[in-house]
């Protein structure tokens, strides 16, 4: 059988007001292959896929699916042509059932009403085919993230997709779920479907893909067979220079205890306990990594330490001083820096300039303010210095934070928080959604903070990040710490097991744990 191309994109160009997102991009995806598209944030991967799916009209270029051209198409046309997309932020309606989500837009009817029985049956058949175990009548809001992803895949199959696009499918999954997903994708390839997946995790590319297209700054910088490349080579094509994929850390030299948390509990909105009797201790010059599936109490722990949420019982002390339930300003003044998990909502004021964002938290004090008036010159000098030190782009203090890339927004927060020379640094998902160049920067900065004698609390859903940086690792599950390890004494597999509560039978010993933080929180685009 001659090899035909399932997808052919030629000369795709898309210009947004400030950036050229796609610059004469060509993409060939062969029928029945798993094709990875890799690139940093802002490289234009998502834009390219949105063009393919008809969500974004290109300024120039053409799209062919299985040889047939698509002109000025909308998602409905792409769906009809056999394309299905699993978006990075799931496109599921929380308050509807699995079956309703699957049929939405293409409902089976009996007369004028929806044929609910037929819908249920189709969902059961499709999910049974791949061993998904989905209950068609369950509400989406009661599903785990891994199951939600399966609903998305069933949605796509229900529409008869022969070409599946998955945008960053593994970002929210545990290692076990990732392995299951890869099994599903391979099974889909066996059944003759073509799969395109977007990612920036190079391990996954090497493991799963047949071929890889690499993008940088809106252009294709390489097309290679996955079997004949290495992570280092891919990283170099992505970034344009050699990148340290795994920072190496020196043996730490921990000093006195900086942060001490004992017996900390907190109530959630519905009265359930979201934190249960948590004890942690971090010494100066030490990184404590907290691993766990999102929504198991990590957010609450960080919020209590930084004063953003009240504890119902327990104690938090910083260098011996009690900071339990004190105000964020008080806690900051004692030397706690915070890189929040949601950088756009809590880390920055997006409508403010770089210079303004860089003084937040210190704006009321000398030298940035005198007699209730902001000192703009000092603010600008301060900004110019930090921009230089951290290589922020664009290097203009008057740029609004909203106009920075995700990586530069994160650098901006890092620059501000590190500049206060904190005793304790609380870093929550510090590299979420930032590209590998910026990851390298954030990781090196965190370790240099540690080596300068700060205590670091690192919360991350990325196991590789936790394992690279931590001197000690604690695993959280349903609001409690279920296991702790020395940094190099544990493997990813074992951590993954503890994260799902399956490790060493410890969760069984706790009497009927209440459902901790409700359903795992999901990121939502835009809002």
């Amino acid at each position, binding site marked *: 059988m001659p090899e035909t191309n399932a997808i052919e994109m030629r000369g795709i160009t898309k210009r947004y007001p400030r950036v050229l997102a796609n610059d004469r991009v060509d993409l060939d995806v062969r029928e029945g292959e798993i094709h990875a598209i890799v690139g940093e944030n802002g490289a234009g991967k998502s834009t390219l896929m949105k063009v393919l799916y008809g969500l974004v009209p290109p300024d120039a270029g053409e799209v062919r699916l299985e040889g047939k051209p698509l002109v000025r198409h909308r998602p409905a046309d792409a769906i009809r042509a056999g394309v299905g997309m699993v978006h990075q932020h799931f496109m599921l309606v929380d308050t509807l059932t699995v079956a309703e989500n699957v049929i*939405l837009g293409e409902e089976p009817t009996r007369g004028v009403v929806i044929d609910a029985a037929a819908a249920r049956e189709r969902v059961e058949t499709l999910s049974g085919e791949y061993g998904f175990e989905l209950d068609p009548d369950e509400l989406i809001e009661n599903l785990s993230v891994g199951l939600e992803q399966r609903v998305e895949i069933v949605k796509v199959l229900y529409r008869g997709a022969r070409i599946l696009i998955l945008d960053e499918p593994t970002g929210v999954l545990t290692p076990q779920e990732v392995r299951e997903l890869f099994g599903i994708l391979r099974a889909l390839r066996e059944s003759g479907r073509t799969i395109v997946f977007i990612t920036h995790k190079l391990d996954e590319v090497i493991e799963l893909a047949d071929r890889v297209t690499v993008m940088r700054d809106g252009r294709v910088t390489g097309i290679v067979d996955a079997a004949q490349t290495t992570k280092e080579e891919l990283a170099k094509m992505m970034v344009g220079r050699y990148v340290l994929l795994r920072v190496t850390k020196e043996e730490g030299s921990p000093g006195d205890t900086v942060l001490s948390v004992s017996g900390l509990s907190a109530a959630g909105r519905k009265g359930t306990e979201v934190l249960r009797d948590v004890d942690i201790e971090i010494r100066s010059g030490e990184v404590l990594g907290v691993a766990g599936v999102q929504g198991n109490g990590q957010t609450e722990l960080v919020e209590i330490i930084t004063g953003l949420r009240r504890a119902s019982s327990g104690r938090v002390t910083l260098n011996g001083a009690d900071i339990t339930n004190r105000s964020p300003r008080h806690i900051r003044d004692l030397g706690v820096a915070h890189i929040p998990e949601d950088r756009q909502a809590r880390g920055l004021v997006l409508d403010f300039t770089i210079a303004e964002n860089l003084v937040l938290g210190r704006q009321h004090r000398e030298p940035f303010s005198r007699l209730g008036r902001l000192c703009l010159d000092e603010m600008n000098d301060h900004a110019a210095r930090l921009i230089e030190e951290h290589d922020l782009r664009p290097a203009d203090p008057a740029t609004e934070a909203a106009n920075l890339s995700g990586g530069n927004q994160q650098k901006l927060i890092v620059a501000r928080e590190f500049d206060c020379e904190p005793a304790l640094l609380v870093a929550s998902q510090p590299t979420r959604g930032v590209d590998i160049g910026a990851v390298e920067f954030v990781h090196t900065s965190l370790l240099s903070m540690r080596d300068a004698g700060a205590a670091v609390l690192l919360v991350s859903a990325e196991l590789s990040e936790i394992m690279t940086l931590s001197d000690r690792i604690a695993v959280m599950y349903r609001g409690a710490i279920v296991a702790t390890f020395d940094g190099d004494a544990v493997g990813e597999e074992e951590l993954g097991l503890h994260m799902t509560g399956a490790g060493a039978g410890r969760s069984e010993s706790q009497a009927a744990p209440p459902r901790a933080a409700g359903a795992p929180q999901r990121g939502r685009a835009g809002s």
Partner: protein
Amino acid sequence: MFELAVLDSALRMATPLILTALGGLFSERSGVVNIALEGILLTGAFASIVATYYTGDPWAGAAAGVFAGMLVSLLHAVVSIVFRADQIVSGVAINLLAMGATQFLTWIIWGSSANSPPVAGMAHWALPESWGVLARVVNPVIGHYPPLVYVALGSVALAHVVLFRTPFGLRLRATGEHPEAVDTLGVSVHLMRFSGVLISGALAGLGGAFLALNTHQFVKNMSAGRGFIALAAMIFGKWNPVGALGACLLFGYAEAVQMSLQGRDVPTQFVQMIPYLLTMVALVGVIGRARPPASLGKPY
């Protein structure tokens, strides 16, 4: 307080609320806040009297109310969906516009700044005399209320089926929760939202028509906050047709009690507060926390 007369008037008071609340339901389920309901109600009331005045047919009046309601809601739809303006601001503007315009036109048409001359109301439905016994048994029961009361009650059932059993309803609800999801499935978000807002205009316009035809004339500002109370009833009823019906009946009952208590020992000002107090109690969420559509009020 439970005399037949009070219950009877409660149902009449509830009718415009029911229609308007159902309207609000369709708009909000699609993700568009529609506080313009107050103005739409008023415009519907005015248009129905104008049409009835000139044609002598109250059914033409009802049709005019629906039409005028849709016209005004179209304005709200264009401003808030196409131009993505703040939906609250658009709603407030429309309410003020409706207040001024109806009063102005009342003056132009009838030369009065306060009200229109009386017009004919709707004849009550009745079986013909020739049906004999059946007519004599049934007529006193159904012949008791203006036909639009039955239309309102029927609309509740219809709205329930449309929202929860048809593809249109599923898409409308999904649009209010997660418009991106709807868009990626090839369904037009704008089309769904326009439908929702236009249906709300039609229903609230009909509610206004009932209000005016039941009084046999147009009186300036006769909506008197009913649009807002209907919105409160919709929230009280947790964005469900049947729940909204219950809330409207409760509010209608409060209004009827208020009217029956007037002229007795209780100070009227106090009694007049009852429906509004109930509204506030409802809004604070006494009957469990109501969850609005997730994308309510956000332009797409």
